[in-house]
């Protein structure tokens, strides 16, 4: 057995490497919160990077798949560019949130995958990610144009007052003013209470009504405001074309400010680059006395009157509900508008308690699965069974070591994959033992039975493992995170199982026979 020493060395090298790569993981997950607090941030991050990540299903967090709604009539390059820029903007926005290890990744041709470990304020996360943040400044139509338009719509609709009553479920609609009776006056602006917004929207979206709106203008709603118990949106008639957009923005800061009525309101201060400042100066200087609407994602936040030309390139968004909202708004404005709107295709969020529970269940399954196999194999193959199952502990070590190298993620199905791998690996030992028994039944002694048992079983072992690997490989192409984690472990497990169940188990038997002169092991 001149290869014995070489095989021992190979095995020791594999074990050493596995432990070496697994060590940071063990270090990281055995740190107490206090120790983590104490450790320098840089060192902690380094450690985390080198250790196995827990999937969102185990540590809690949010997983999102977004679809980038690119325009239909553009070529592939343009589309690609838009999706890439959108990914970049979202990445910037998320980076400013201070979440540990977020992942933002373009997948396929028009999708973005986002993983936010530990994030639980789902609504806020979605707001920050999904908000287009298209900032625009548009001039308001002169009051007399607005009035004339409303009158025109009133006259047009008075013919169909009965159908309108049905659709709006208001029977107090005035016969001669069907449209304007949906509106109220609020501080000099037109406003619509929340319940009626859909009805108004429906009317304004009709093609025949659109024809009544003067060329170059369009209706916009304000953001949701509340007075007392009622909620409402204002209605504005604005210029069709944006006079200035967020593209010229260089900074946005959340502060306390607001107007003379509301001096302590949260606001976002905007600062434009020189070109933007010039455009802003031009608009304001030539429209003194008129009103300029500040629009974010097609909702008018405020529409202050231009009192004088503004030359410094600074403006303010008011009408924000809370400081948190102002901060988030400043963050996404700074990161820039999304080049295209996005929609959520898939969202999966797991709370931290459920994650902990899953870790516990996964660990329990692994421990008991292992013990069950151990007892079963000891019962059926005696000492031989004990030896081979013990060797399988090495399988865990090597698989986890490889996962560390790959920077892979451990999920609950992945934990199931770990223990299943051991179940599959043991099959090889069963095949070997059965062959050995066969050889011994045919009169061979134990030592040569080892030789022939391993040799004759090897074909079947390779066949079955290759077939496992093929299935696992196919599975890696399926679906989302947790399943991929399972498939990857299964595929790695095939290779490591061949090593532990065939190479190492044979080695142990050979060591027992050739180094310790053991002549028989009950199998």
């Amino acid at each position, binding site marked *: 057995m001149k290869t014995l020493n070489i095989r021992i060395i190979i095995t020791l090298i594999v074990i050493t490497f596995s432990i070496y790569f697994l060590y940071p993981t063990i270090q990281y997950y055995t740190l107490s919160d206090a120790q983590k607090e104490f450790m320098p941030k840089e060192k902690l991050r380094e450690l985390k990077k080198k250790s196995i990540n827990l999937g969102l*299903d185990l540590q809690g967090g949010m997983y999102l*798949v977004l*679809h980038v709604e690119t325009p239909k009539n553009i070529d592939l390059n343009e589309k690609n560019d838009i999706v890439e820029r959108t990914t970049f903007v979202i990445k910037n926005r998320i980076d400013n949130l201070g979440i540990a290890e977020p992942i933002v990744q373009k997948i396929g041709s028009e999708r973005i995958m986002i993983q936010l470990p530990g994030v639980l304020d*789902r609504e806020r996360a979605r707001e920050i990610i999904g908000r287009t943040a298209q900032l625009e400044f548009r001039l308001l139509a002169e009051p007399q144009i607005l009035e004339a338009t409303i009158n025109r719509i009133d006259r047009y609709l008075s013919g169909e007052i009965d159908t309108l009553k049905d659709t709006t479920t208001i029977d107090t609609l005035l016969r001669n003013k069907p449209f304007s009776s949906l509106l109220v006056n609020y501080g000099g602006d037109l406003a619509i209470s929340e319940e009626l917004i859909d009805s108004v929207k429906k009317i304004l979206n009709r093609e025949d009504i659109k024809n009544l709106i003067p060329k170059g203008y369009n209706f916009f709603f304000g953001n949701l405001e509340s007075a007392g118990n009622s909620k409402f949106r204002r209605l504005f008639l604005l210029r069709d074309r944006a006079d200035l957009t967020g593209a010229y923005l260089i900074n946005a800061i959340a502060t306390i400010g607001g107007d003379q009525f509301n001096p302590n309101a949260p606001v976002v201060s905007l600062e434009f680059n020189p070109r933007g400042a010039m455009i802003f100066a031009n608009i304001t200087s030539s429209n003194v006395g008129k009103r300029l609407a500040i629009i974010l994602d097609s909702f008018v936040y405020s529409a202050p009157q231009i009192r004088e030309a503004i030359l410094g390139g600074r403006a303010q968004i008011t009408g924000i509900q809370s400081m948190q909202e102002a901060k988030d708004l400043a963050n996404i404005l700074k990161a820039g508008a999304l080049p295209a709107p996005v929609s*959520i*295709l*898939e*969202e*999966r*969020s*797991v*709370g931290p*308690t*459920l994650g902990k*529970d*899953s870790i516990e*269940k*996964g660990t329990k*399954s692994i421990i*008991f*699965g292992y*013990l*069950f*196999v151990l007892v*079963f194999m000891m*019962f*059926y*193959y005696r000492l031989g069974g004990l030896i081979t199952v013990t060797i399988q502990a090495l399988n865990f070590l090597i698989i986890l070591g490889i996962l560390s190298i790959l920077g892979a993620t451990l999920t*609950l*199905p992945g934990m*199931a994959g770990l*223990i*299943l791998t*051991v*179940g*599959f690996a*043991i*099959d090889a030992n*069963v*095949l070997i033992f*059965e062959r050995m*028994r066969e050889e011994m039944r045919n009169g061979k002694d134990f030592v040569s039975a080892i030789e022939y048992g391993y040799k004759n079983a090897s074909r*079947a072992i390779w*066949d*079955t493992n290759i*077939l*496992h*690997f*093929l*299935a*696992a490989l*196919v*599975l890696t192409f*399926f*679906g989302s995170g*947790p*399943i991929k984690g*399972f498939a990857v472990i299964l595929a790695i497990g095939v290779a490591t199982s061949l090593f532990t169940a065939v190479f190492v188990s044979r080695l142990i038997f050979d060591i027992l026979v050739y180094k310790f002169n053991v002549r028989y092991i*009950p*199998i």
Partner: protein
Amino acid sequence: MGWIDIFANAKYDFMGKRKVFYVIYALLIIFSLFVIFLKGINFGIDFTGGNLVQISTRSSDISKVRNALSQLNLKDVSVQNFGQEEDYIIRYSSEIDAQFVVNKLKEILNDEIVLQRAEKVGPTIGSELRRQAFILSIIAIGLILIYIWIRFDLYFGLGTILALIIDVIMVLGLYSLFQLEFSTITVAAILTIIGYDVNDSVIIADRIREFLKRYEGLKLESQKLIEIYNNGINSTLSRTIITSLSTLIVVIALLLFGGPVLYGFSFILFWGIIFGTLSSIFIVSAIALDLKIRKKF
């Protein structure tokens, strides 16, 4: 020698009785298909699209939760106990956020309700996953067919694949009978089974080929073939059963301790391994033999 040895000297006439097994299997397939068509597969939101909300409550029983939900006017709503006594899974198809549902339930039930899990899958993803699952299963089966065809012969390849498809149909029949939720993890289990169930057939095929080699060049009567095939199955019978048992034991641990998330997964593996073992013993070689005798290919 003093070892425990099941089926060490098995001499069953599997091939001679293969017609009986065909009939039994035909009945099982008909029964499984009948169940699937009658009860349908309970596709989860991964495949249908929609919302899933998992909550834990302090002291609300399922009827209370169901009542409270009926006040929310959610579309296609269903509630189901999940794991612990006061944990529930709610599914619905409306475009309403999980947090809203939880807040409303808090109000109506006046109970401490924690949102444990919220999943929302759009219809695009659902139909994509359906297509993907189908295509990947076909690819996996195709790869296995090619592998066995190359390693052994087309007869065994077809016998194995036919048995695999039958196994999957039977597992799905049971899955449908118990109305377990069919999700992405179920597909993972089915693909794993597709890879695993071939094991026993391959080992038997390998043994049969080993025996056939002794008669290389000779034209064998079908009676002789039957004997060789029987020998192949019988001499590998104990390892066929022990390898399956040792894996099954791990799966039992998963069924017992893996919790509700892994239950459907473990269920498929459990029955898949059992059916796979039985079909490799009873029908894979039988089909291969019949194809070989008739030499249709």
